[in-house]
């Protein structure tokens, strides 16, 4: 009843090819965009932005990036934390070296630097596959963290090896530093997320994405039909690392403001983002959002319910949090191995037939 193609006539190729061909879906998409851009910025305070929206937006960008590599191109990567660190340190070096340049440009450039690094660590993917590639990217993770800890140039020779984000602006509005307004940082990250999602969505619908998926499904067959594995795999590494680098730059500059590489970008981060896309759904942009929301928002929600709501001891709540989140992950993966995105697809199918399923 709500969700159907019937009566929604397309009269041009453009209409037929649009991202959301179903009217209901399209309006839902516009409604979400409207709420995100025009309603939420007026309602948020420090807590909502710093504890909920920023981590969600930034992890979504990272998840989209990793999903391109793992979900669309089939190259398993455990180097996400390291690549986020590249983004963070690149943006730190840029923002301290060129303080007058807009921070948005720095973030994009940091993504570019990460893309180059990603391509370099992607080269082994031409020779090795699957778990072995995962090990090679794991090496990237450890090497990059070691590098940023070891070489003082990266942290501007500070005594402790921490990097701190100074105040930087975009169009005269502060987006980093302690005095940045919550709506400004929220909108800044939201713009990046929206652009990344639109680019990713369109890349994966186009010829580039089809090549990635061909490589993912069977690389030998893909090569026979004329897909160049070199360009396909390396472009996936480049695009993926670009997004991951942007998320790392925002994670450091906008969200945390001070970062220590081993703690913030350790192997745990790589696993966290990988779990996001596995739970959300491999090969789905929506899945990246759903996975990020699941792993970022659920612990905060549980903490608020158990500690602030019920007044339980914090350690008990923290342990219960692990159990509940872990239990839900197992349950979800047993009930729906293709992740939350598949649940959403099934829901849409059901909606299409409702109220008269055959």
């Amino acid at each position, binding site marked *: 009843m709500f969700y159907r193609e019937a009566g929604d006539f397309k009269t041009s190729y453009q209409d037929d090819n649009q991202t959301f061909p179903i009217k209901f879906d399209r309006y839902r998409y516009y409604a979400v965009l409207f709420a995100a851009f025009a309603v939420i910025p007026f309602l948020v305070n420090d807590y909502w932005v710093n504890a909920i929206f920023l981590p969600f937006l930034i992890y979504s960008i990272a998840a989209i990036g990793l999903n391109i590599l793992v979900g669309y191109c089939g190259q398993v990567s455990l180097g996400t934390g390291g690549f986020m660190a590249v983004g963070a340190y690149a943006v730190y070096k840029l923002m301290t070296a060129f303080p007058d340049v807009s921070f948005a440009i720095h973030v994009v450039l940091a993504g570019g630097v990460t893309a180059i690094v990603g391509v370099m660590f992607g080269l082994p993917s031409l020779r090795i596959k699957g778990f072995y590639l995962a090990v090679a990217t794991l090496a990237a993770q450890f090497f990059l963290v070691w590098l940023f800890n070891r070489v003082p140039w990266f942290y501007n020779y500070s*005594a402790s090896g921490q990097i701190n984000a*100074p105040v930087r602006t975009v169009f005269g509005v502060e987006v980093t530093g302690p005095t940045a307004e919550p709506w400004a940082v929220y909108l800044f990250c939201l713009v990046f997320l929206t652009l990344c999602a639109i680019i990713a969505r369109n890349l994966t619908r186009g010829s580039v994405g089809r090549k990635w998926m061909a490589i993912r499904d069977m690389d030998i067959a893909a090569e026979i039909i004329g897909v160049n594995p070199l360009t396909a795999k390396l472009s996936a590494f480049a695009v993926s690392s670009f997004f991951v680098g942007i998320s790392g730059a925002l994670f450091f500059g906008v969200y945390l403001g001070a970062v220590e590489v*081993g703690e913030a970008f350790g192997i745990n981060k790589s696993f966290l983002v990988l779990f996001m896309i596995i739970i959300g759904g491999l090969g789905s942009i929506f899945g990246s959002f759903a996975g990020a929301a699941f792993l970022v928002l659920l612990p905060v929600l549980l903490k608020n319910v158990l500690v602030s709501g019920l007044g339980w001891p914090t350690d008990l709540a923290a342990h219960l949090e692990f159990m509940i989140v872990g239990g839900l992950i197992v349950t979800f993966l047993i009930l729906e191995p293709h992740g939350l995105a598949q649940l959403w697809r099934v829901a849409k199918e059901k909606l299409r037939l409702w109220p008269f399923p055959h």
Partner: protein
Amino acid sequence: MKRTLITAAVAGIMAAAPAMAELTFTALSYRTGPYAANGIPFADGYQDYFTLLNERDGGIGGEMVNLLECETGYNTEKGVECYESTKGEGALVYQPLSTGITYQLIPKATADGIPVHSMGYGRTSAKNGEVFRNIFNYPANYWDGASVGIKHLLDINGGDLSGKKVALVYHNSAYGKEPIRTLEEAAKKHGFELSLLPVDHPGQEQKSQWLQIRRDRPDYVLMWGWGVMNQVAIQEAVNIRFPMENFIGVWWSGSENDVLPAGEKAHGYKALTFHNVGDDFPVFDDIQKYVVDGGKAAGAGDQIGTALYNRGLYAAMLAAEAAKTAQGIHGVSDITPAQMRDGMENLVITEEKMASLGLPGFGPSFNVSCQNHGGDGMVAVSQWDANAGKWSLITDFVQSDQDILNPLIDEDSASFAAENNITPGCN
């Protein structure tokens, strides 16, 4: 099931009801995660002291204390969530108990006008109160620790360390890197040879570092460790038969948890400390009477008198005294974070004051001022007695080498001021 849930909910609401109290303190604690073994005793001590004040004195200056505990798991992202969620409740002072979270809160808390007390951790140059207006790190910081550690070595060597080899085993993080500069300066001044051995988080794997120590045979080993890293390091030192009395840990490497796993062999291990050890103080009788016997002890209640419990207690005591000072200055009992900051900046800890609180000789006496947010840098050395199973102080509180530290503090705080466009000053 439903009834238990309702009971739990009602109990929860009743437990949350004293939230009406006026003075809000926060404990960003970690009772879970890789550093929980050290986080729990500190959190218990911090909490028990405030419970004691509420039960015995009816709070501070007539205002009940509401302690909000928030679990960080030593994780910076959770620390952000904790800070933002407790900030709105009117938290008077933050004690993040993590160097990473402290670095992160320094600009945020300064912008929000809330003081941070990083007692014996955090950014050392916060001692310069003209730059770090809202950050306090009295009574001692890492550079004091490093300096007093070297002083102790000088003492046992008759004042001459030239030609000796000293190794630093450190947690490879902002925390562990703190003492390096001080030790490098001290190495120049006293002519000893310094070698650096980083250990990566969490520190369960230290074979290669200790192999290197076995090969290089340093005369002394200093350690900046935390959590499981300490236990592993002490065990490894035992394994290579490194003489324990030549092995000195910073205060975060000096708790019972760290030495007990190595058993008898850990006998003689030394640790720096900026407060006294043991439970031979009158305040512990009150804690027994008002807190433990009343069933209000925090956690499992089995940590009382341990080194880290005492540190939590000491932190709470300093916070409470600063709140009293603030109440005195401003003439109101219901103080704001800004007034709390004034209280901390004018805090005076004397021997008489500590004795009246039931803590005679518990720590050094010191005065905080606008120029000096870090106290006098008085640090003592304690030693582990494995037979008696307790720590004891083997030196008095001695002052760190101010000639080395002051230029370093000025340099580091000046670079922070330049980075953040701060004009140093007291107004």
